[in-house]
């Protein structure tokens, strides 16, 4: 549905030039939610603004549903843009318009009749659950309500694609969850392809099917979300996953450990699980099988893209051969379990 081919965008100023998007190739299948995560300044906003030609790429192609945007005339581009909804971090609602009139704006711009506008806006108000606020002004709404108005507005022209530029970054955690589930619901109900950018793992974890990591204008890693959590390849991706897990309220690992092997010390292992293999049952079953003892130092269960994932840190009591067998055995579940030796207990 969305295809980016060799996309570049650079900004020239008098004495230097910044390459904000540096050769990006990306393919987002229809009906999917694709997340792009990166640190501030990585080029996320520039990238997503290139997708609907708010920013003209310096080179490369953007293909939306088979249309090469660079080859469209001005009026064809405007028509295509009407079919690409976009929501923003700061909502960007018009203060001079009521909720109803804000949602009606894209329909007015597209030249819809009064009657069509009425029908469409009222059904969108229902979708985002704001019918009772339709005559209010944006200044009378909370952040979450504003973003819901913006979502309704972005959907007004029945877009095939929805772009989200840090759509939840200005919201508190609870409101973030509510907005994310609304986006998921829209994706399911209307089968809209969603491309979102974010710096928050929460967003990726909650609604994305696939994720790509962007750094210095390049995609350095892309995979399904489960695989991203299970098997982050690059340092940056690993940091995202680790930081996310550590942000959760969990007991500190109570055991001191060091990276070098020393005789007779217990192994400290991080285990990541996906899907129904989750957590303790498997660990206890295998511990029995290999005749070792396992003590759980840290445990966290998360729902990632509607699948359960477990993050454990365990200490293994047993001789070296048995613990090695245990870890090797876990490795045979490669798509659903990952074991990683962190070090040796003091």
């Amino acid at each position, binding site marked *: 549905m969305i295809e980016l081919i060799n996309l570049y965008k650079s900004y020239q100023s008098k004495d230097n030039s910044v390459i904000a998007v540096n050769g990006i190739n990306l393919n987002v299948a229809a009906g999917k939610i694709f997340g792009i995560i990166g640190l501030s300044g990585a080029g996320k906003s520039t990238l997503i603004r290139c997708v*609907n030609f*708010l920013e003209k790429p310096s080179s490369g192609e953007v293909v939306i549903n088979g249309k090469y945007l660079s080859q469209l005339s*001005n009026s064809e*581009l*405007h*028509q*295509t*843009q*009407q079919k*690409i*909804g*976009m929501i*923003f971090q*700061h909502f*960007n609602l*018009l*203060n*001079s*318009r*009521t909720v109803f009139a804000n949602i009606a*704006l*894209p329909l*007015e*711009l*597209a030249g819809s009749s009064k009657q069509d506008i009425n029908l469409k806006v009222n059904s969108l108000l229902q979708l985002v659950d704001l019918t009772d606020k339709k005559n209010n*002004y*944006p*200044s*009378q709404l909370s952040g979450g309500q504003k973003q819901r108005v913006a979502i309704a507005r972005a959907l007004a*022209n029945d877009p095939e694609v929805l*772009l989200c530029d840090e759509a939840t970054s200005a919201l508190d955690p609870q409101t973030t969850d509510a907005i994310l589930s609304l986006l998921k619901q829209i994706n399911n109900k209307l089968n809209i392809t969603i491309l979102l950018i974010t710096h928050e793992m929460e967003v990726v974890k909650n609604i994305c099917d696939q994720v790509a990591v962007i750094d210095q204008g390049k995609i350095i890693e892309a995979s399904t979300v489960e695989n991203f959590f299970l098997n982050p390849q690059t340092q940056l991706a690993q940091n995202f996953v680790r930081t996310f897990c550590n942000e959760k309220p969990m007991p500190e690992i109570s055991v001191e450990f060091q990276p070098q092997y020393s005789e007779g010390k217990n192994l400290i292992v991080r285990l990541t699980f996906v899907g129904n293999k989750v957590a303790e049952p498997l660990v206890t079953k295998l511990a029995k099988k290999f005749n070792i003892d396992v003590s759980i130092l840290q445990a966290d269960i998360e729902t990632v893209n509607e699948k359960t994932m477990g993050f454990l840190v365990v200490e293994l009591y047993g001789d070296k051969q048995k613990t090695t067998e245990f870890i090797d055995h876990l490795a045979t579940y490669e798509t659903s379990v990952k074991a990683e030796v962190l070090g040796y207990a003091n």
Partner: protein
Amino acid sequence: MPTNIWGLLLQAFAETVYMVFAAGIISFVIGIPIGILLCISDKNHIAPNPIVNQCLATVVNIGRSIPFIILMVAIIPVTRWITGTSIGTTAALVPLAVSAIPFVAKIAENAFKQVAHGLLETGKSMGASNWQLIFYILLPESRVALINGLTLTLVTLVSFSAMAGAIGGGGLGDLAIRYGYQRFNSFIMIITVVILVGLVQIIQLLGNKLSSIYNLGKHQ
């Protein structure tokens, strides 16, 4: 004489109102589009055009820096060419409008520049053309600032119209100079001042009223 005074005052008041509002409307009609052009031709706006922007900015700044009293005298030939005369209220409209146009252009430009860039981006993301961006976003979103600025323009025009009276433009300023200054009639002087102050108050009041109607969305 006393009955005559009220008649004179009434006529002068009508002339002042005519000058202020006619010149005001002319300056709005010409000044606001110039303000739009100034705003959108700026380098990060929706239709960047450095040449248009620089030329307009220069003309507007020159226009704003010429004192009204000098402008009024300097453009007498133009006034005569347009209206066929250089005295009277209609003739006074020309210098009044010419001085108010750059003022309005600047005020309008500032009002438009306060519209957050994100809103125009949002419009663009909906596939809006530049015309649509101007009429659906730029103008409505800046209307409160615009109304306040235009009110200020009318107030300024009241005092300029009094000056125009000094060279035969008619109106309350003319009356004050002929009777109050040249014939030492301080009664007429005081009455004209009171009427001018009242007129400014009424204009300001109406302007505030109008902007608060449109400001509904902002504060409640």
